[in-house]
């Protein structure tokens, strides 16, 4: 093995216990010094399981069955447990997805950083002072203050971005050769995300460390990775240099993942991938992607494709690694003249939690049949505003008018008709559906409350599911039998069943994969175009706004700092905050997905 290879994975297989279902299988990877590998795939593809296996760790209920993970010449899977423990932190380090749960809330950050050092740095003389210096050094490197005052803080005294940078500092403090980063920017604002990505890139370069960057979002990975490995259903289906893969993806799945990323310019259509990744227990024979692939033919379903090297260092598991589907130009949104009568008007709304003012002087209008996006980062007050509109946050001053008629503050004081006309879809589909009710009961519940007894309940359910692009036979299922995207569609169907005029969507795609997010956005566009539904789309994702809304209101610290037609706000943003949002969003246009690059 050459001295430059930091990570070499061969024939790695991780199985679930006790069924022996293969969660990750036939994985071969190599990574040179200083390189960053982007590991991309939807939820359930086995990326996190693989990431943990690189530290020779298996989650409860899983076990590493065979293969080797060689880091700097040592196979971690054959080392004694004690040596593996010492290698973690010194040779391989891990940065988890959620810094809030990775940091111990009861310990000061200095203590936690020093803990990481104890296991790794030399245990010789002047450890104390050296340790202290090392902590300060690494804090400076991640662009955090190195003052004693800061080192004595507890995790809850830091912002989300600072916490994530502490997690990065913890990983780098022991000078490891390899860093595994598991979706480290998911849940962070775009500005914070950009800073964190820059920090990771700078640290990897500075230390000469290699990185494995796990994410479901191609746009994020494209900006940081030298090499890409695309995972589907436990296998690496395509691997190669980032340039080669982004310019000419050879596996249909990779191409579809790229097309699912929203286009900031809204020229290319964002297309979701229908269906969802199969569970490890129910993987189809043959190519696992075949059931979702437009190009699949009989031999795809019959045999598991072996990896084929299409060009040097670019391998694909597909029986016909060919040209991917071309990007389609986006269908223009319904023109938003804003001239229609407003469905909803918010006038001079202010709200507070205790003494903290979270919203002040909010003026917002949703014209009939159009989509207004409420754009803001976490803590900007956007959820409070949308909850106030639907009557879940009654403590506010100001007025909310529905068709010119003032609404009572609390939902229980509003008339049935008013409650029916404004429906709310929640952010997290895993919490928004009662796990003890079937889809049919979930959809019919609100209908019975708001419209009374209906003549043909089956027809109502069938119709609502159809409008949300769900198969009718899902009616008998329980939420835990559905994927995240299906759950969110059920939540939308539940809202549609009551026949609303205005749908409030609170970050409804933020907990979903990019591929699923695109199909939900398609659905919302369809509802707006076909049924004339008005939408208030609350989001932190600027690219989605461009692809869905006619108007946008930008919310910062409880105030609307800019609002107007989407086209105008994006081309000539007035407010510096809007400009920084646009600049910090990853501009993702791989050569392959560019419209003008093809005939």
């Amino acid at each position: 093995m050459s001295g430059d290879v930091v990570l070499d994975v061969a024939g790695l297989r991780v199985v679930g216990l006790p069924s022996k279902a293969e969660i990750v299988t036939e994985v071969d990877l190599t990574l040179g010094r200083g390189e960053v590998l982007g590991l991309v795939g939807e939820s359930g593809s086995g990326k996190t399981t693989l990431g943990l296996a690189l530290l020779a760790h298996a989650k409860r209920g899983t076990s590493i069955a065979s293969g080797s993970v060689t880091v700097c010449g040592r196979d971690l899977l054959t080392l004694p447990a004690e040596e593996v423990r010492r290698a973690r932190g010194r040779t391989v380090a891990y940065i988890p997805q959620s810094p809030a749960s990775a940091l111990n809330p009861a310990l000061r950050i200095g203590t936690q950083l020093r803990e990481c050092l104890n296991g790794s740095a030399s245990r010789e003389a002047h450890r104390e002072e050296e340790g202290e210096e090392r902590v300060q050094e690494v804090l400076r490197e991640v662009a955090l203050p190195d003052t004693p005052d800061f080192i004595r803080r507890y995790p809850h005294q830091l912002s989300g971005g600072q916490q994530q940078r502490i997690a990065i500092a913890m990983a780098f403090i022991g000078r490891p050769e390899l860093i595994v980063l598991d979706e480290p920017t998911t849940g962070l604002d775009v500005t914070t995300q950009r800073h964190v990505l820059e920090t990771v890139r700078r640290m990897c370069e500075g230390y000469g460390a290699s990185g494995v960057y796990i994410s479901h979002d191609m746009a994020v990975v494209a900006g940081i990775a030298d090499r890409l490995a695309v995972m589907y259903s436990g296998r690496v289906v395509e691997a190669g240099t980032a340039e080669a893969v982004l310019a000419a993806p050879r596996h249909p799945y990779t191409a579809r993942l790229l097309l699912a990323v929203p286009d900031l310019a809204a020229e290319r259509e964002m297309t979701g991938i229908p269906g969802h990744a199969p569970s490890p227990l129910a993987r189809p024979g043959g190519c696992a992607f075949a059931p979702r692939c437009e190009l699949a033919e009989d031999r795809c379903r019959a045999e598991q494709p072996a990896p084929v090297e299409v060009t040097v260092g670019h391998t694909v598991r597909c029986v016909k690694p060919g040209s991917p589907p071309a990007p389609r130009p986006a269908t223009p949104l319904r023109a938003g003249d804003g001239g229609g009568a407003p469905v909803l008007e918010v006038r001079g709304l202010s709200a507070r939690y205790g003494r903290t003012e979270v919203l002040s002087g909010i003026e917002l209008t949703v014209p009939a049949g159009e989509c207004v996006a409420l754009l803001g980062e976490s803590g900007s007050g956007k959820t409070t505003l949308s909850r106030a509109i639907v009557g879940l946050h009654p403590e506010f001053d100001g007025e909310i008018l529905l068709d010119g008629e003032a609404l009572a503050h609390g939902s229980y004081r509003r008339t049935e008709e008013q409650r029916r006309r404004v429906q709310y879809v929640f952010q997290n589909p895993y919490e928004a559906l009662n796990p003890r009710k079937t889809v049919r009961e979930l959809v019919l519940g609100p209908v019975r409350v708001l419209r009374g007894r209906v003549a043909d309940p089956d027809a109502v359910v069938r119709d609502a599911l159809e409008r949300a692009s769900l198969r009718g036979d899902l009616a008998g299922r329980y939420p835990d039998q559905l994927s995240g995207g299906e759950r969110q569609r059920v939540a939308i169907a539940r809202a549609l069943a009551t026949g609303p005029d205005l749908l409030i969507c609170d970050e409804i795609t933020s907990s979903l994969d990019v591929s699923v997010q695109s199909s939900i956005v398609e659905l919302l566009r369809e509802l707006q175009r076909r049924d004339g539904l008005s939408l208030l789309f609350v989001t932190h994702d600027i690219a989605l706004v461009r692809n869905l809304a006619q108007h946008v209101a930008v919310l910062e610290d409880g105030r609307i700092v800019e609002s107007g037609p989407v086209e105008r706000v994006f081309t000539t943003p007035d407010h510096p905050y809007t400009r920084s949002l646009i600049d910090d969003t990853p501009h993702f246009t791989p050569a392959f997905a560019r419209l003008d690059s093809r005939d």
Partner: protein
Amino acid sequence: MTETATVPTPAPGTPATGAGRREGLLRAALRLRRTRAGLVLTALVLGVALLGPLLAPHSPTEFVAAPFSGPADGMPFGSDQLGRDVLSRFLHGGLTVLGLAAAATAIGVGFGALLGVVAGYRRGVLDEIVMRTGDVVLAFPQLVAALLFLSIIGPKLWLLVLVVGVSHVPRTARVVREATLKVVEQDFVKAAEAIGVRRAKIMAGELLPNVSSALAVELGLRLTYSIGLVAGLGFLGLGLQPPTADWGLMINENRIAVTVQAWAVALPVSAVALLTVGTNLITDGLARASIGIDRGVRS
């Protein structure tokens, strides 16, 4: 027992699809050896208590031999302090203990669950009143409180059931309230509020079904305690009165001659012990299944 399809607890973002629904609490609990052992023990004692009266060779109040006679023909466990057949009295005496314990548990857990869900959902002053009243009741040890009321009003069966039941209420309410608080935070409850579902219906339809795991564990635990309390109060003479056959009472009546004729004490003692161990094992199995210890990827 690995035929049923299950999927590991889906982390947010993991589609739990294709392989069917996560199995129910009871079925998951049944996988555990401790639950099955508990079921066997409980069924054994239940069988004795329910079928016993049909199988008994003598009437429980019939005098068949001299007091404290040893085992003899037609009298395998000898006679008690008045010369009645120990086996017949043992077979007749279980139903009362079980019935009283079950009734007390039903009252205690039923009211406790109701108060817990209401307090956890409505919060505010109501919550404070319910929980602080509960704290006052909790301050009295269960047995002491029961003794107090039974000795003032007299050993009445309804009172015994009521006192044991009420002593369970604050304990159950506390557990159910905690479970409710976690569910209330979830968005499906807010979704119901936003469309104006009546509060009572939210509690019955959205909250109660989602605290049922905690409730099942609580039910088993309180049943175990009830059996011990009812048998204990019977032993102290505050339960059923002579000449009724009752396990607690039997122990009390025959304990003076335990060195001469141990069977009259040993039989009811072991039955009560087996029953408490059995229900406790079931409860433990339910508790483990509900938090998902030992759950893997099965097919």
